[in-house]
């Protein structure tokens, strides 16, 4: 099993190489990245205004990873999303207003105030919310894949984790069982260079993408700041999984451009490293490419701004949860399985799409 590096897709027309992305798909990829960034910037403002309690974490600089990978998912696929991957939630159909309500601990947030910040998953949209013990959700994704495999369903479970997680034993267990049973799981490894303050050279002796071979399945390293490169790798991995080819590990090389949380001033990051990655901002880079291809990015920006304004207003009006409900819902009365998510990729809703570029 060779480790390969996927090449970024070319830009216009059928130029993603395989005709996977239409012009509208590209506009949507841009829109989701922009929406993720705008939502997180708004959330950070609310945090600084004291409206978001607790701590605050975001995925600034990593937008291409969650957007590019989650965009490959079909409606019946399932996702275990990490706290730097708001884009995946947005693609599955979570509205920014509910994300903001969630972060502010409001009753109408996804967890209704039971859990904070990005610790959520909308079960109606096929997402299982993360826990803080990383990468526990990698095993849950294996279980989702196991269910698909037992029922002979052509479906995929996708899970995200940072390079820090690869140092934990649970990661090994997940990779091992996925390899043994050839589970239909796509592991998206976000190497954002730091586990909190710990740099790569303190985290592993061998690039974790190399380890995939040891588990018996392919590992692919892509430019995590190129949304189409990430998408391309994810689409291929999903296809493999769906057709019985087993799991894939995709390492996305990227950079966490904010601190671990809002409380972290990142003094441990060399300034030149930040400068290097700032020049490769995934949202700005993709905007330039789309603008060059004649896509009206200004209109998308205006559209995202308007959506955020509406949603922020809505979120701020949402009620706080009722204190006596704090003890409700520890146990389930019925077991209702996960629902299906939105799948905006034109492959899943071809009728909606007229314009292949």
């Amino acid at each position: 099993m060779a480790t390969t590096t996927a090449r970024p897709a070319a830009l216009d027309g059928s130029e993603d190489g395989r005709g996977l992305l239409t012009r509208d798909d590209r506009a949507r990829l841009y829109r989701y990245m922009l929406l993720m960034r705008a939502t997180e910037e708004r959330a950070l403002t609310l945090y600084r205004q004291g409206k978001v309690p607790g701590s605050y974490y975001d995925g600034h600089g990593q937008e291409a990873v969650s957007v590019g990978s989650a965009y490959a998912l079909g409606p019946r696929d399932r996702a275990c999303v990490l706290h730097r991957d708001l884009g995946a939630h947005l693609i599955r159909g979570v509205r920014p207003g509910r994300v903001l309500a969630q972060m502010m601990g409001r009753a109408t947030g996804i967890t209704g105030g039971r859990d904070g910040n990005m610790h959520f998953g909308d079960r109606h949209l096929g997402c299982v919310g993360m826990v803080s013990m990383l990468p526990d959700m990698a095993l849950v994704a294996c279980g989702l894949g196991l269910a698909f495999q037992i029922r002979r369903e052509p479906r995929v479970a996708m899970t995200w984790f940072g390079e820090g997680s690869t140092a934990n034993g649970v990661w090994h267990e997940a990779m091992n069982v996925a390899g043994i049973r050839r589970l239909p799981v796509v592991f998206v490894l976000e190497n954002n260079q730091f586990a909190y303050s710990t740099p790569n050279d303190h985290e592993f002796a061998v690039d974790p993408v190399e380890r995939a071979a040891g588990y018996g399945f392919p590992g692919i390293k892509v430019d995590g700041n190129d949304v189409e490169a990430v998408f391309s790798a994810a689409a291929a991995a999903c296809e493999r999984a769906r057709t019985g080819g087993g799991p894939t590990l995709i390492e996305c090389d990227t950079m966490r451009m904010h601190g671990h949380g809002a409380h972290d001033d990142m003094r441990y990051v060399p300034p030149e490293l930040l400068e290097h990655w700032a020049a490769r901002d995934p949202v700005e880079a993709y905007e330039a490419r789309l603008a060059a291809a004649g896509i009206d990015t200004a209109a998308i920006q205006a559209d995202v701004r308007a959506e955020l304004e509406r949603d922020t207003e809505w979120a701020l009006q949402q009620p706080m949860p009722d204190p006596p409900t704090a003890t409700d819902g520890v146990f389930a009365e019925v077991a209702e399985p996960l629902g299906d998510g939105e799948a905006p990729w034109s492959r899943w809703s071809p009728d909606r799409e007229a314009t292949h570029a």
Partner: protein
Amino acid sequence: MPELTYLQAISDALREEMRADERVFCLGEDIGRFGGAFKVTDGFIEEFGPDRVWDTPLAESAIVGTAVGAAVEGLRPVCEMQFADFISCGFDQLVNVAAKMHYRQGLAVPITVRLPSGGGFSGGPFHSQNPEAWMLQAPGLKVVAPSTPRDAKGLLAAAIQDPNPVVYLEHKHLYRRTKGEVPEGRYELPLGEARIAREGTDLSVIAYGAMVGVALEATEDLDGASVEVLDLRSLVPLDTDAILGSVRKTSKVVILHEATRSCGVGAEVAALIAENAFEDLDGPIVRVTAPDVPIPFSPPLERAVLPQVDNVKEACRELLAY
């Protein structure tokens, strides 16, 4: 009604649920070709195939974690820990992923985790534990501990069909030593209902799992005293009505468990009684438990640690005379 061992009853429950409900599958170490360390799943892989009887690698986190994933997709996984002791290796998946899922996201996790528990056979510090108290501190888990073959079957079926994560403690000492009549066919016993194993008026012994038998034996003929034995069966939810009802009747209570003492089930039950039935007490609440030590290997040491029939007799006599 056929007479089955405790082990056969567990095996029957699992087999019948798997036959009747295609969502049910089991996973664990050596449960397939080998039939399980205690042979609970003997013959299962031949009947149900390797997809539904998964011989996992030695990876307890993976067993529980993948079960969670499969459960939220609509399946009903039944995990086997080879020994209850090893749940520590899969603990995070149990207490952080499974237990909190419904509270946080409204997502039900219908998994069953079977824990062959308990000592009495020189299993030593890593094959003899009764780790139930660990689970009691993880809101969202149900915990059951049957003492008879009939209860073992009905409670396992109920655990599998319950929409929550259920920890099912099956005491190894009972596997082949305990026999009893077991109804044929599928049936469920409700989780959270204790059972009066013997009615009495002078003193209540509250126990569960293997200690129910010890309690019955110790108090069968105790100087003519009328001793009630309450089998909790379920530790979460706890049948508080049954506990308080028994206390109100007898006014004297001995709580008996094989697990270690501090912050154990006995402590919880004692606190419950003190809070809710203080004015019904006619003597101190007494606990008979293992002391706070690891379970030792050598037979005389192990006997010294695990509650014996004579310890229970002595405690009951003391309290009766109070």
